[in-house]
């Protein structure tokens, strides 16, 4: 057990290293890339000025531009007057921020800065959106398991039969349609009057949900919520279900041919017990291991499905922040994304160590 503990300590120690590498890289990219926030502010201000007909400043080159003081102010606001490493360290919170009386205020202190767009702390923004994404992701993943395991088992036990072949067609068709495209198709079919208008055309809840909730109309609220969730959840299920079904099937097929299954039969155990206890228990190992990795992937899927179904979660927030160049929010989402992935990987190792007594990480 000692080797295992130090293995996990080692994995945990890798998190900060990974974290710093990735965030620094992205921070650098953002700082180096053209079209940064100053450019944006410049165009916006200029447009506003032209419309307002206000006095125009003239830059040294004689072109229309912002006054130098304004640019400097903006630079300070966006910390662009710092070199990239220092700016990064300030963001991280291990370098004193001169503009705020030399305080250490950064990610390490739990301060992700202010959102340019919402003018509120980034953390508040993210925390308000996070539960929505997680709810969808988890329900979707759970639904995937509920569909895939029985289907995979049935397919393995009827390998090369009529049922297996037909369901394979469906499974592979599911694999060929990305989750968000499936959502889009479903929205088209069941959100508009094209086929059958039964589900709302996107959105997280109806607009009057909060009023109804306050009015105590509990069942209506639940129904409305469920109503909105059906299509996105199907999208999440579509994203992973083919892989998981086939993984389940192949894993069980492999185990059914294993020597220990023969031993179990030779002991006179019933077929049910051998398949559903001995073989299945072993075939579940790769599936359990996928849990941790799936958590990281949910994050990636949420961009597309939340955009398609217009769900105000992390993914849509990230998308909008990208469009609006809201860098503090982007960095905040990146931090969450990276941490979830890293923790997911470790979770996979932990689960593997729990379900497979043979595994000893060294």
């Amino acid at each position, binding site marked *: 057990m000692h080797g295992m503990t130090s293995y996990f300590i080692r994995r945990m120690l890798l998190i900060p*290293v990974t974290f710093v590498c990735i965030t620094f890289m992205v921070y650098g990219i953002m700082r180096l890339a053209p079209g940064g926030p100053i450019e944006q502010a410049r165009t916006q201000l200029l447009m506003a000025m032209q419309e307002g007909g206000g006095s125009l400043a003239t830059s040294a080159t004689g072109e229309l531009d912002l006054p130098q003081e304004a640019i400097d102010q903006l630079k300070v606001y966006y910390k662009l007057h710092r070199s990239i490493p220092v700016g990064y360290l300030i963001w991280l919170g291990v370098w004193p921020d001169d503009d705020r009386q030399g305080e250490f205020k950064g990610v390490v202190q739990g301060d992700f800065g202010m959102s340019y767009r919402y003018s509120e702390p980034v953390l508040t923004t993210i925390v308000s959106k996070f539960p929505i994404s997680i709810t969808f992701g988890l329900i979707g993943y759970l639904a995937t398991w509920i569909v895939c395991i029985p289907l995979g088992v049935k397919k393995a036990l009827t390998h090369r039969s009529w049922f297996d072949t037909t369901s394979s067609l469906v499974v*592979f068709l599911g694999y060929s349609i990305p989750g968000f495209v499936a959502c889009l198709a479903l929205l088209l079919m069941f959100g508009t009057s094209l086929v059958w208008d039964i589900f709302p055309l996107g959105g997280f809840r109806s607009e009057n949900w909060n009023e109804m909730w306050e009015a105590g109309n509990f069942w209506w609220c639940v129904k409305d919520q469920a109503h909105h969730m059906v299509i996105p959840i199907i999208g999440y299920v579509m994203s992973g279900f083919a892989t998981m079904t086939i993984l389940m099937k192949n894993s069980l097929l492999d185990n059914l041919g294993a020597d220990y*299954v023969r031993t179990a039969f030779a002991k006179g155990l019933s077929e049910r017990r051998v398949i559903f206890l001995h073989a299945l228990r072993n075939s579940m190992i790769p599936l359990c291991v996928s849990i941790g990795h799936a958590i990281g992937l949910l994050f990636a899927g949420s961009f597309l499905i939340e955009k398609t179904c217009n769900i105000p979660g992390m993914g849509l927030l990230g998308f909008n922040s990208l469009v609006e160049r809201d860098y503090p929010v982007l960095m905040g989402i990146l931090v969450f994304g990276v941490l979830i992935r890293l923790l997911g990987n470790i979770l996979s190792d932990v689960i593997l160590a729990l379900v497979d007594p043979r595994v000893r990480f060294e």
Partner: protein
Amino acid sequence: MHIVIKLLELLVVLLLGTLLTTRGIPWLLARCLNAVGISTSFSPVTEKRIRRFKAIRRGYWSFLLITVLFVTSFFLELTVNSKALRISYDGKTAYPAVMEWVDLFWVLGDISSFCKKSDFGQVGDSEVDYRQFARYVAEPSLVRSELEKSKSDLDAERSAYLAKNPEPGAGASQYQMRRHQRQMEKFAKRREGLATLEKNAAVFEQGRVSCWMPVYPVGPSDLRYDLPSNPPNRPSLEQGAPFGTDLSGRDVVPQMLYGFRISIAFALVVSGLGYVFGILVGGVQGYYGGWIDIFTQRFVEIWGSIPFLFTIMIIASMVQPSFWMLTLLMVVLTSWLGITYYVRAEFYREKAKDYVQAAIGSGVSDWRIITRHILPNALVPVVTFAPFGIVAYIGSLVSLDFLGFGLPPGTPSWGALLRQGLENVKFYPHLTVIPTVALAATLYTVVTIGEAVREAFDPKVFSRLR
């Protein structure tokens, strides 16, 4: 009747594509490889697998279908394009579509300048309006009637002008005189122009022109001004737009076809380069092991924790990525990673086998052991993932385009169509339906290949005890 001819043309194109794919390219490849000195014969193990793959009908036919379509799509400039394949006018001949096609492989410069309007009986210096030209070729009387119409228009305009501004008399000012003169010169010039046009009309009437248009004479970036309503247009066979147009009025048919080529090419290049890097890194890790392996493995782990889609989106939001930049980003950020794991494991496994030990024990060099002994054996399990990788990369490209962080706007792309579909899901379902069906069909075909390859390389034995 018109549609029947089009379908026949399409059939001929596909037939040629099939011949090229199944006969021409393999022959050429074998020729090239033999010339370089690489033997094209497979070991019996591989041959058996190929036989088994061919025996899986569904997968084999899917493979043929997708390769034929992909190879044929490399001639899209010659089949689906608004430029003429061959255009000749009074002894002058040009091959604009062929030029564009050559430009695909060998950049020729500004191809539109090769075919100026003025050289082909049209007025102006820009590129020939081939569709108009073709219309005239088909119906030379049209030229005359339009010419007559222009003539009468000019005459009418002139007389109207004269009626309003009679010839200035002696008392007219210098200024008035000059203005009138200038106007008259203008009319005369137009008259002259019409005279040249008359000559053109004669050329058309005498049949000294020809224009071969491609099978579908609309390119991916051409706006369909010829359709009656405002874009987007719904699909309509009568109007000659079987898939309709998108929001800006570009025809969906060429967008789908060119989008197919881009998607598959993107996925192939991404996975190909990913394989090269992945095999290189994984091979070194697995073969040398030790600290090289540990450090590289840590790096791969860290690198793999980057949310790649998000990172590409961030980069794409700042710098508009080109096809090659997007490809490289995909390779660097994700596609090589997965392969290293497998190649590394395979190298570890193969290296422990006695045949490698025997080679080392005979004094064979590392390079030869890696390339000649281990790689061919380690590659097999990795190759079986290739089709699934292609599915994933097509999906990534479509996703990025869908979110608007993919290829530059104007590039024919399924994802961009889907985005337009989402924006107009209520009123223009064809913008969702067509790309969805195309995407699903393409990916399904690739998945079928993948499943057949997996089955051929690693048949799952099923045996049951009771």
